C-alpha cells in the first residue's frame, strides 16, 4: 500500500468518540494554537521595546474584540494544556494508567479548564465587578 494511503490511527470512520481521545486531540490542538499564539505574544512584548506609544497600541489591540477573543482562547488553551500536561507527566512516571483513573482525570482536566477560564475572566471583567 502506498505510504499516503495507509489508514490513520485512530481510524476515524469507525471510532467512537471517547473522553480519552477527545482530551488527547485537544492537548495537541491547544499546544499548536499556543505555539502560533507566541507570535502575538512576541509582538506584544517587543512593542514595549519601541516605547510607550507602541506598547499602548498593543495594549489596546489586546482590549479590542479581536484581542479579547484571542486572549479568551489563550486562557482556555493554557489551562487545558497545563492540566493535561500534568496528567501526561504523571503517566511518564508510571502513575494513573488504570482505565478508570484515565477517564476520571480526563474529565477533571476538561472541567478544570472551563472553571479556571471563567474564574480568571470574572476577575478582569468589568460587568462582574472585576478590574
Amino acid at each position: 500500500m502506498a505510504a499516503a494511503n495507509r489508514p490513520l490511527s485512530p481510524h476515524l470512520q469507525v471510532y467512537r468518540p471517547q473522553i480519552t481521545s477527545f482530551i488527547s486531540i485537544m492537548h495537541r490542538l491547544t499546544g499548536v494554537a499556543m505555539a502560533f499564539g507566541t507570535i502575538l505574544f512576541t509582538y506584544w512584548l517587543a512593542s514595549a521595546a519601541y516605547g510607550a506609544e507602541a506598547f499602548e497600541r498593543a495594549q489596546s489591540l489586546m482590549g479590542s474584540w479581536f484581542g479579547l477573543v484571542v486572549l479568551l482562547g489563550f486562557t482556555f488553551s493554557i489551562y487545558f494544556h497545563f492540566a493535561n500536561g500534568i496528567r501526561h507527566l504523571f503517566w511518564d512516571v508510571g502513575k494513573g494508567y488504570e482505565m478508570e483513573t484515565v477517564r476520571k482525570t480526563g474529565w477533571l482536566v476538561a472541567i478544570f479548564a472551563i472553571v479556571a477560564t471563567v474564574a480568571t475572566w470574572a476577575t478582569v471583567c468589568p460587568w462582574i465587578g472585576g478590574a
Partner: protein
Amino acid sequence: MMDQMRSQLGRVRGLGSNKHGVGHWWAQRITAVALVPLSIWAVVSAVSLTGADYTTFQAWISEHGNLVLMLSFVVAMFHHANLGMQTVIEDYVHGEATKITLLITTKFIAAIGAISCIVATLKVALTG
C-alpha cells in the same frame, strides 16, 4: 559498502521514529515541568497587567523577580513549543523535503521569537 562495515548498533543508533532519540523527549518533559509554575506566574501577571500603560509595565518588568521569571518563561516556552511542533510536523508531514523545510522554518521562527522577547525584556527593564 560503508553501511556493511558499520556495526549493528552503529546503524540503528539515532534511527528511531523521530531520528534523534531520547534527547527530544527529555527536553519536552523538562520544559513542561518548568512551565507548570512559570505559566501560573504568566497568567497571574497577564491578569494584573490588564490595561496597564507603559509606565506601569516598565515598573513591573524592572522588578528583579519579574525580570528573571519573564526570561525563564520565554526560554522554556519557545523551546517547548518548538519541540512540540516538531513532533506534530513529524507525525503529519511525510514528504522529506517539505518536512525538513517546515522543521527549519519552525526552528527559525522560535529562535527569532525567543531572541526578540529576551532583548525587549532586557531593554525595557534595564534602560526603560
